[in-house]
């Protein structure tokens, strides 16, 4: 597979690898994919008092594109409000990393991971808007 330089750079120096405390109420966790399909992404966000995502972490089981897509996703969500982060589309990730056509599903998974993390956070806060929910 021939990959773009940006993708290889993210694979070799992934941003924000790690884990946040799942039980922390300011943390939302998204786990998407399936081991049998060859890719699983776990993406976590930590929302600050101002309603903006102050930290994000990921761990990914998958190919180079999956790792790079999730690395990029954590980089992009930081500093955004939940509504803004929800606007990140897989096509933006695919375009930024110049994903080969057979790897587009990796960017779809990254978008799903962001949405799942946001959903988890909102559920923890009884579906209330992020700004009011933050304590």
């Amino acid at each position, binding site marked *: 597979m021939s990959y773009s330089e940006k993708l290889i750079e993210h694979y070799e120096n992934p941003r924000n690898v790690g884990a946040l405390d799942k039980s922390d109420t300011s943390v939302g966790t998204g786990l998407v*994919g399936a*081991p*049998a399909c*060859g890719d699983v992404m776990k993406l976590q966000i930590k929302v600050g008092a101002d309603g903006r995502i102050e930290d994000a972490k*990921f761990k*990914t089981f998958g190919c180079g594109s*999956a790792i790079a897509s999730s690395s990029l996703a954590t980089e992009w969500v930081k500093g955004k409000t939940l509504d803004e982060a929800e606007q990140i589309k897989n096509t933006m990730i695919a375009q930024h990393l110049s994903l080969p056509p057979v790897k587009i599903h990796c960017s779809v998974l990254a978008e799903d991971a962001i949405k799942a993390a946001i959903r988890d956070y909102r559920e923890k806060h009884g579906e209330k808007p992020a700004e009011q929910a933050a304590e």
Partner: protein
Amino acid sequence: MSSLQDMKIATEGQNRPKTPIYLDYQATTPTDPRVVEAMLPYFTTYFGNPHSRNHAYGWDAEKAVEKARAQVASIIGADEKEIIFTSGATESNNLALKGVAHFHKGKKNHVITVVTEHKCVLDSCRHLELEGFEVTYLPVQKNGLIDLEQLKATIRPDTCIVSVMAVNNEIGVIQPLAEIGKICRAAKVYFHTDAAQAVGKIPLNVEEMNIDLMSISGHKIYGPKGLGALYVRRKPRVRLEALIHGGGQERGMRSGTLPTPLCVGLGEACAIAQREMGAEAERLKTLRDRMYNKIREQLPEVYLNGDLDSRIPGNLNLSFAYVEGEGLMMGVKDIAVSSGSACTSASLEPSYVLRALGVEEELAHTSLRIGLGRFTSEQDVDYAVEHIVQAVQRLRSMSPLWEMAQEGIDIKSIQWAEH
């Protein structure tokens, strides 16, 4: 970096090999320089058509081709008249299966093969099914070997041919050829074996093993690409219908002018392999064991796919749990290996060979095939081990599955959304 040439330029002067270390000997092998040397005069000086009967150019070429034929025959204990040159093992497998089936069509319409065969055998069988033949695909056991009792029970009065590969290209396991040959001979059914991965690596004898047809590849045994051979038994005679028609060369079974330099190359490759096989197998087994042991000492949860004992010395197929194969290959780009991961195949399906062994899909995705060969050194092995271990450790540290496993969470207990 897209090509070897780019890689050479990009890494020049850095403290790493100029080209990746080649550990993919089941994919192909470099042509041995001794083979190339033997071939060269037949491109220029002795360029004649080996089928020209009326001048010295033809005679010289014919002599060379016949010497090569005898060299190929010798390594499998056959008679030189029983060797048909083809374009490679794919053509040999097509000719063996379709050729024999077509000749016996009407009287015998049943073919037996195995689910872990090479695609060219499976696809030839699919084609025969479209033509109205019935094909039984035998399963394999967990170790990759077929169950002989099951084979016996599958043979019917209308079974024409049994095709079982000698050595599997992904997991390197050796099927019990002599036992299969005995069963087939007793049942009066032809026994074909795809020996592309076996010739020159393990001793083969068509008489002792009761093999009726055998496919041979040039480029898997340090010979040239573009040439192979099919052994076709003469006593008792195997009848088959040609696929390629023309001037009636190769006893009418495969028309077309023989490529003299390539034939010479295959012959020389067989001669070298026959001379060196014993010592080389010992050397490779030592290297293979060194690699396997070193990896296992440093990494937990590494699983060998396929039988360890009934296996060619130059193959390791390992699953590194919780690390996806393509991602791993990217992490060891100084080493040229291949993976059974879906991400490396066009179909996005993990290896059908590993699935056939009952390897779970999540483990099939984590496999690497490592092939050692004639030009692999102990240094290469140590370098590869170091890089593989580092890459696996790094990728496990960022794998959510590894994290769950460490926390004692059973991955199977989670409701995954398959996509």
